[in-house]
């Protein structure tokens, strides 16, 4: 890929290096590779095929001219806490032991990157290749103090883990939160990742490496609620072992720019992965969901469902790729993207890709875009329901398919309240 390079990356490097010390928990080879990649390739523009509809370079140039990295401390996270969950807090990209709950659950361990054991060190950067993407490189070069969350073998966690990434800045800042999540053999966990910006203009470059071991199950939720001054690129590098199961539901509530790179490597037989996403956007928001299902072995399943409601001048993007390698026979992969446009100035770009090198597979995708169904409106109108209310009912019904994937009741209620179509 030949993409034009700009000096945005250099400006970020200068601004961030000035305020932060050297990242000492990532090995030198990865650090220098990351720097080299940034210097050579820069931040991707829309000339880069993967960022065709999402010119991060231009956005950073326009919105983050004066990166000051002048952060504000966050002292309380009470209002964001879920009643029934273990809370872990990351403030401005760094794991905060004081704000996080004390871990007393059997089989659950949390280590900050400063106290990584050898196992943790070997996982760090193993899933996120710095030479693959500028934002992986950027995060690696300037990684915040992350944590390694480990669920031991044969452990069923009954309580969900709620990770709050909270940012607050006096003016313009960049954060690079990072974590490793490891679910041991035959274990089960539910993790809610919640992104919030309370003050200032913050660009969050999030990176998570998730390992789901044999016969383990991870149910994960990503709630993105960064407000109108929140900008983020979120990379999830997930690897599934034999008979592992991964389900992620991402709800995009607010944020000026949300770019999600969700890459799932299915490397063990009989594993399954499910990705769901819902975005409800307006104004001049840009939401771009990129997913990759990399089927490397036979007999696996993957499923994707992304829905979007796009209003005003906002832009929604879905680019899903199902990649079936040569030996991944009996793969069953499905992808669906459905969108409703509510305004004449709204845009939706979708690119559902299939790249298939095995013959005994069932792969399909479907995408549709339209307006609110007129006959459905008429049906409701005819029963005395006003246009306003009918619209809310229909949009709710449209979104419900994704919201129903949330099995945690407390979270589901919170989301429904936040979305509240009107």
């Amino acid at each position, binding site marked *: 890929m030949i993409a034009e390079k700009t000096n945005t990356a250099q400006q970020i490097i200068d601004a961030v290096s000035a305020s932060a010390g050297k990242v000492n928990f990532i090995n030198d080879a990865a650090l220098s590779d990351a720097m080299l990649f940034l210097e050579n390739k820069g931040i991707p523009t829309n000339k880069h095929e993967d960022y065709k509809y999402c010119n991060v370079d231009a956005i950073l140039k326009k919105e983050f001219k004066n990166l000051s990295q002048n952060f504000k401390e966050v002292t309380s996270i009470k209002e964001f806490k879920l009643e029934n969950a273990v809370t872990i807090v990351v403030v401005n990209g760094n794991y905060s032991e004081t704000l996080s709950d004390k871990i007393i659950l059997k089989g659950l361990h949390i280590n900050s990157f400063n106290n990584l054991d050898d196992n943790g060190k070997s996982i760090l950067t193993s899933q996120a290749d710095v030479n693959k993407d500028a934002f992986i490189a950027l995060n690696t070069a300037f990684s915040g103090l992350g944590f390694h969350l480990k669920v031991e073998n044969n452990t069923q966690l009954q309580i969900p883990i709620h990770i709050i990434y909270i940012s607050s800045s006096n003016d313009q800042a960049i954060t690079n939160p990072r974590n490793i999540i490891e679910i041991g053999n035959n274990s089960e966990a539910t993790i809610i990742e919640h992104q919030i910006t309370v003050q200032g203009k913050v660009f969050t470059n999030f990176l998570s490496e998730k390992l789901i071991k044999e016969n383990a199950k991870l149910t994960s939720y990503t709630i993105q609620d960064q407000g109108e001054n929140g900008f983020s690129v979120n990379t999830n590098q997930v690897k599934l072992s034999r008979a592992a199961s991964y389900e992620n539901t991402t709800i995009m509530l607010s944020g000026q720019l949300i770019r999600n790179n969700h890459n799932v490597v299915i490397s063990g037989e009989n594993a399954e992965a499910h990705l769901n996403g819902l975005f409800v956007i307006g104004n001049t928001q840009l939401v771009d969901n990129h997913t990759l299902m990399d089927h490397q072995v036979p007999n696996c399943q993957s499923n994707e469902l992304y829905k979007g409601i796009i209003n005003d001048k906002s832009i929604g993007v879905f680019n899903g790729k199902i990649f079936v390698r040569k030996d991944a026979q009996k793969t069953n992969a499905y992808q669906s993207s459905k969108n409703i446009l509510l305004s004449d100035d709204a845009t939706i770009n979708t690119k559902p890709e299939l*790249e298939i090198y095995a013959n005994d597979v069932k792969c399909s995708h479907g995408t549709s875009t339209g307006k609110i169904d007129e006959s459905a409106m008429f049906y409701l109108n005819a029963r005395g329901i006003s246009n306003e209310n009918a619209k809310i009912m229909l949009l709710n019904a449209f979104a419900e398919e994704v919201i129903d994937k949330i099995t945690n009741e407390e979270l589901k209620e919170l989301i429904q309240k936040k979305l509240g179509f009107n």
Partner: protein
Amino acid sequence: MGNEILEQHIQSDYKWGFITDIDTETFAPGLNENVIHALSKKKNEPEWMLEYRLKAYKAWLTMKEPDHWAHVHYPKIDFNNISYYSAPKKKTELASLDEVDPELLKTFEKLGISLEEQKRLTGVSSNIAVDAVFDSVSVKTTFRETLLEKGVIFCSFSEAVQEHPELIKKYMGMVVPPTDNYYAALNAAVFSDGSFCYIPKGVRCPMELSTYFRINASGTGQFERTLIVADEGSYVSYLEGCTAPQRDENQLHAAVVEIIAHKDAEVKYSTVQNWYPGDKDGKGGIYNFVTKRGICSGDNSKISWTQVETGSAITWKYPSVILKGNNSIGEFYSVAVTNNKQEADTGTKMIHIGKNTRSTIISKGISAGFSNNSYRGLVQIRKGATNARNFSQCDSLLMGDKCGAHTFPYIEIKDKTAIVEHEATTSKIGEDQLFYCKQRGLDTEKAVGLIVNGYCKEVLNKLPMEFAVEAQKLLAVSLEGSVG
């Protein structure tokens, strides 16, 4: 057993791979301004045509060869190693078919388009008027007089430049400007010949028009141009066929096809592309890098592309429709078959600009052997294209476990009243389907043929009768027993 049949097929010959021994006049390989001057002079072209070529050439020089985005792989092309003009030696101006080199006529007979025979059968409306392009030059256009009675102009591009300069000046480059892309620019600079067709107001063309392309000489590239203009309320069905001899080298075919449909006009363009695909090791074969685009410029107009792609080492083309007129319709029906080491990256672009525009895309890919077959398409609904409607369906069929099938659809929507649907599936021929057929006494070979034909039926049905038969045979040959 599967492998055996596959092997058997891989060894089956390309039956159009003969070389015609004919005197040709060929330029030495190389490309520079002098070549363009010489080419233009050879064709006795007016000054404006030469200028057009030179302008395109200059633009081409500043452009970069696209090599990073399509899902195809080939070594870099040396454009100075190609001869840009090759023509059967002509004695004088030909007045009738009798004067055409008999060797040449034999070639066309082998190809199954007997010009002789068709000449005798004048006046039968089901007949086809053929413009045969041999290497770079249009050899003979049949039925010209019959067509002229209706006011239909159907001739070689060079003749049109001489006889209808006002039409060429007006329409050439209207849909595919010389600076459109790398290969379109190259074509605009060095195009040798091609076909021109004009259907006047309100005329329904009485017969199918057809161009047959044949590359013969070695070391040459073929750069033809086709321009079809359908004036208000007219209708034409246009066919295109292509073959090439079997050679170890790769030959470049970079054509441009432009279609302009005025108000209420309809153009149906069908292609059966069977350039030499190279041998089983991927040696030789044609690089088919073609720019095809039509514009529905008037209200209620319609352009329909149907293609059956079985040949070429590398196919890289996206027949597109710009739906500018209100209520205009664009259609794309495609069957692309790749076998051995062939690679195809093909699809369409539907650009909706006018109100109430509609487009349908049906693409059927079949990959066998070691080949890679990609669908790449764009559906774009521009702002203000109220009530636009698109339906796309892209199916892939995989035969054997060494091939690949890919889908890269781009969908860009900027209007809330648009309804756009896209579906894609990938599958193989089901054991149960085969079993069903075999149980009824069909052998594996025939069963596969039957299933594939059924799979492609939606597209094959769109082809004109004469072509549908050829296409079905082609499919059978291309896939003979490649069930794995």
